[in-house]
């Protein structure tokens, strides 16, 4: 797996203050489980995303640890409360120096 890859965030661009918004975060990644074998019988080493974090104006609001049980191109849908206008930063960190960052703006009225 390369050092970084494409990611996508789906969330509302504007929201009422105090409302709950749904965020869908997806990253392009094979999530090689480390339980598969090549035709030659050699085990394919594990290569997965380990941690996903979401910060809202630099305050961590959500974090998840991934294990090989997460499917390829991990999608995670979670919620947060729209507190203030600002930026949400999403970060995926994985094996072999993998790191991907994505940002989304939200306007809270």
């Amino acid at each position, binding site marked *: 797996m390369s050092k970084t890859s494409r990611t996508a965030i789906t969330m509302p661009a504007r929201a009422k203050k105090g409302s709950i918004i749904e965020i869908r975060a997806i990253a392009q990644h094979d999530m090689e489980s480390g339980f598969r074998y090549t035709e030659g019988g050699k085990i394919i080493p594990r290569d997965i995303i380990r941690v996903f974090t979401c910060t809202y104006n630099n305050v961590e609001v959500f974090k998840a640890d991934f294990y090989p049980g997460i499917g390829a191109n991990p999608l995670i*849908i979670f919620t947060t*409360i729209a507190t203030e206008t600002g930026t949400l930063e999403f970060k995926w960190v994985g094996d072999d120096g993998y790191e991907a960052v994505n940002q989304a703006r939200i306007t809270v009225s």
Partner: protein
Amino acid sequence: MNPSKTINRRQWLKSLQKLSLLALGTWFSPMTVFAKKEEADSAIKAITGGASIKTGRVTLVIPPLVENGNLVVLKVSVDSPMTENNYVKVIHVIAEGNPLPNIFTAYLTPRSGTANITTRVRLADSQRVWAIAQMNDGSFWQGYAETLVTLSACTEVV
């Protein structure tokens, strides 16, 4: 020939068929086949540290019949007001039939608003999947879902 007699015979055969299906059903029921596996048990112990787990409040949704175990939509929700004094701290998902039972761990805060997480997981076998939630007061709650997997994940050769 008496027509009522043939009907009776047919009905009797039908009922016999139903009965045998029922017996077969209980024989293959996931409840009897999958007791909580040791590995999953130790994974759960590692999470709770031996604390008792109460049943309820946690709802886990996975399709009851899965064609391909490589990508299964899993939804977990915990019944909680998610206020400063009463919220879900951590949600763990454990699949007892997977080579590594842990699937994911999600850390929530009162700012999450709700305790609903959706993701896509791999399932190696027909099995029971557990979700364990830890509240901010330290108590543990659990829920589970059963599923039948036709094509297993992690067995294919590249």
